[in-house]
């Protein structure tokens, strides 16, 4: 049941414009940072290689923070969707406890 619900959510979100915009923005940020000296993500430390473990770790940390904030937006919207679109009267699960097992 949980797998079915998860796959429904993923398919539903992939149809949403917002997800692709977020993907694009994050992709562009990291692409810029790794390919150009003008764009800096995280603190720039001189005398490090562009692909040094420290630099890559910094990217991960920063992007992790961004995406965590985005994830809250997505989860919030999934949780509130039935009430937002007035479908809660139809979609109350038959056995409430089993819906997450």
């Amino acid at each position: 049941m949980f797998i079915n619900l998860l796959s429904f959510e993923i398919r539903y979100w992939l149809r949403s414009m917002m997800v692709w915009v977020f993907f694009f923005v994050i992709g562009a940020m990291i692409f810029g940072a790794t390919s150009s000296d003008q764009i800096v993500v995280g603190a720039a430390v001189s005398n490090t290689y562009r692909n040094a473990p420290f630099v890559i770790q910094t990217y991960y940390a920063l992007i992790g923070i961004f995406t965590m904030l985005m994830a809250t937006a997505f989860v919030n919207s999934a949780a509130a969707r039935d009430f937002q679109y007035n479908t809660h009267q139809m979609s109350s699960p038959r056995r409430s406890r089993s819906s997450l097992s």
Partner: protein
Amino acid sequence: MELRISNLSKTYANGVKALDDVTLSVPQGMYGLLGQNGAGKSTLMRTIATLQEADSGSVMLGDIDVLKDKDAVRQRLGYLPQDFGVYPRISAADMLDHLALLKGVTSGGERKALVEAMLQKVNLFEHRKKALSSYSGGMRQRFGIAQALIGNPKLLIVDEPTAGLDPGERNRFYNLLAEVGESVIVILSTHIVEDVLELCSKMAIIHKGRVLYEGGPEAAVESLAGKIYSRKIAKSELKDYETQYKVISNKMVAGRPLIHVYSETVLDDGFAVAQPGLEDVFFSKINEIG
């Protein structure tokens, strides 16, 4: 299976008495609930559909206590809400599949077959890939019925299903409902009087939370035979007539009021005997005439 409602009462926090000692027994087949807007129809249906609590009384579906054993009821229930929305960016087939999952159809293959069968049944199969948000009112309502029919419900509750449908769509919808209603309990609420007469073998009239009439619509109409008189009058005379006679209803016909009057004795003076309709029954019950 039979649905028995006894002494059901509900008062909202703002003091509105939505249900006042309602006792009904609903047999298999189509059952009409007739009442004005705000009469308590939706409260009654939402209570039976386990979506809200009653203050007192009991509801029994066969030998299931509806107010206590909610899961057992939900497994046997199909509910079409009065107004419902749909998710954006989703096709009818996907949404129906999702709702079937929530209703407990966990096997993927079974669900796929079920969704297709339901969409065939309500004539939406060719539109199954279209976004639900682009559906017309009638199509959306038929989708609502399809979702209510998932899982072979024994009790089907439809709350004002024809609000906003054009006459053609209304007929198609009712044909569909009548087909389903042969084998299960269907409770249909409406404020459109003719719908009940056309479809239901039993009905109840609800007004201000109380049941004013329970029985067959035809018997109710017959009970008024020969007691209803109609007359066209001038607009200015309406007040006089209302004090002098038991006026059941007045409506405009070609710009002049046509009144229906209840009388045990024969009226002449320009009155003509009118064929009573269910509308006369409805208004005479809620205005406590006759």
